[in-house]
């Protein structure tokens, strides 16, 4: 399932650290993954686990100081983005790889008309004159379902609702036909009925335009409906990497299992108590070289406290970083 064949993006051993007064925070600590053409890849994990920092690092958008990408490579069509000069990256950012952010209220400039903001992107990247760019912008607004786009294009952001603003963001992100769309919690600030609209839109457009999508979210329900492959992150590392149906039917890492069990579900009526993972996510400062999940894990062994488990490839071709699968051959699940 996970191969590097026809991958357009290969990330190897990416490490992004932040310097704070209390010590170094290893926000991303050795992340490796690849993205194939047209694939939808999900990143799930709790707040502070490094999913957003990983994806900001891909575009070199880490504020420095305090942040610094200390190691690793990000190969986009076999060229390392991290080694590129700033003006080269600018040709990729917003053009070949673009982003949608969580908060549609703050990611648009409130002083500028939608037209100015959309046309700017298109002129900058697509070598079009203003009339052509404006025509393209109106096309894009129509594509994302803004009613009367030719009129609405001259409105200001505050004249749109939250869901509409997120549509404008999507139009902007897709206006240069990017190969990769990174959506960082695109629906977290929206209501469920609007969330359903936006997810359908992202899915339909990425299929239509052949865009590969990276979807970052904490909502397991959202990834279940949207993604092909999933990376589960915990404390700066990818702890499990799996195709979506295996991840939900046969999760391997104790954290993934706990996470799936602790979500209340509409379709299951158990009347039982909800499972909960004890404790809290770890403090990321000065984390020792051990499995970061061991204080909360139900299967902690001695070795978990001493060193970090390398990723093991399972028989379904997925991978998991847990000592349970190093010592024991897999026998239909750990009880």
């Amino acid at each position, binding site marked *: 399932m996970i191969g590097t064949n026809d991958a357009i993006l290969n990330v190897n051993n990416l490490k992004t650290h932040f310097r704070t007064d209390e010590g170094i925070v290893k926000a991303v600590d050795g992340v490796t993954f690849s993205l194939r053409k047209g694939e939808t890849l999900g990143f799930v994990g*709790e*707040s502070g686990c490094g999913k957003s920092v990983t994806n900001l690092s891909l575009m070199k958008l880490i504020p420095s100081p305090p942040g610094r990408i200390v190691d690793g490579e990000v190969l986009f069509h076999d060229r390392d983005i991290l080694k590129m000069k700033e003006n080269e990256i600018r040709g990729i950012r917003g053009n070949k790889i673009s982003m949608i952010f969580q908060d549609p209220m703050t990611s648009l400039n409130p002083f500028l008309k939608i037209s100015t903001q959309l046309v700017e992107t298109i002129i900058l990247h697509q070598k079009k004159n203003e009339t052509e760019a404006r025509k393209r912008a109106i096309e894009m607004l129509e594509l994302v379902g803004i009613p009367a786009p030719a009129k609405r294009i001259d409105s200001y952001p505050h004249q749109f*609702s939250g*869901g*509409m603003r997120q549509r404008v963001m999507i139009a902007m992100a897709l206006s240069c036909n990017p190969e990769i769309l990174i959506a960082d919690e695109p629906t977290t600030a929206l*209501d*469920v*009925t*609007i*969330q*359903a*609209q936006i*997810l*359908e839109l992202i899915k339909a457009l990425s299929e239509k335009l052949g865009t590969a999508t990276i979807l970052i979210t*904490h*909502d*397991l*329900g*959202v*990834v*279940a*409906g949207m993604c092909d492959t999933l990376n589960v992150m915990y404390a700066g590392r990818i702890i499990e990497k799996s195709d*979506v*149906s295996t991840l*939900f*039917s046969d999760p391997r890492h104790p954290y993934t299992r*706990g*996470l*799936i069990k*602790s*979500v*209340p*579900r*509409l*379709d299951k*009526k158990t009347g039982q*108590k*909800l*499972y*909960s*993972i*004890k404790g*809290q*996510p770890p403090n990321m400062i000065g984390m020792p070289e051990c499995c970061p999940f061991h204080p909360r894990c139900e299967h902690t062994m001695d070795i978990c406290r001493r060193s970090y488990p390398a990723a093991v490839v399972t028989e379904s071709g997925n991978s998991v970083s847990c000592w349970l699968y190093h010592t024991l051959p897999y026998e239909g699940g750990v009880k």
Partner: protein
Amino acid sequence: MNKALLEVKNLKMHFPVEEGLLFKKQVGSIRAIDGISFEIKEGETLGLVGESGCGKSTTARTIAQLYRATAGEIIFNGRNLASLSSTELLAERKNIQMVFQDPYASLNPRMTITEIIAEPLIIFKNRKLMNISRKEISERAEFLMEKVGLSSLFRNRYPHEFSGGQRQRIGIARALALNPKLILADEPVSALDVSIQSQILNLLSDLQSEYNLTYLFIAHDLAVIEYISTRVAVMYLGKIVEVADSRIIYKKPLHPYTEALLSAAPIPDPEIEKKRKRIVLSGDVPSPDRERTGCYFYDRCPRKMEVCKDNIPKLTETDDRHHVACFLYFNP
């Protein structure tokens, strides 16, 4: 059958919209709650669900008398809270406490945990509404900390030293300090991570069975509401459109809005997600700034009829304890 602890009758809360700098003049009003009625029985949990801006939080705040209602009655324990004087109200407040959404904004950063949890007790002691000694107060604060799963060793720490989930526990301990009967929980878990969310939900349901608490539980997450609630009320644009037992409303939703809401909620299972048919509502929630003459859901309803345009459907009992406000099920 238990008796109703709280009864809300035709409650309205309209906020004035004013214009002018010096001489303000009311030019309109935001109809945050526009005539709702419901009751909560003792020991029950009523889940209030709906999209942002539909009036869920305003409902809780109006019940707690943080806002003075424009019209309607709030009958708690047989007394109408809206007509009480401020001294009478203070005494009654002992029985109604709130837990807030944002565990960062709802705790005073300059107070220690003990001070925060003990504050309601100190207020009631100072107003001579409660006979309790200083020593009893600090014992009670420690007892509550242990009760909500915090070590009493933390008693002299400040809120910034705690994580979001722990802070929410502090907020819950504070709400329990006066031994209330009713807790109004306004999105208590929506700011928390999944693994912490389930800890807090379990804590709330344990406390409910131990102290026979009654909850009004507000959330926008349908699965959370289903897990915690005995009855569920769905709100849209300041109106309640459907109320029923939690088991029934999820199995057999009647109102088109409830149906759409349920079908929009993602389920964490890829096999089910693949097969599901979604009702995707078009458009956004309209602004509540004008009086409506037809059904409040008319603009977005996929099953609208001619009759819905000029008649407002009343919340009507169709089945056993299943109330719905929709002309698909009765005639005007």
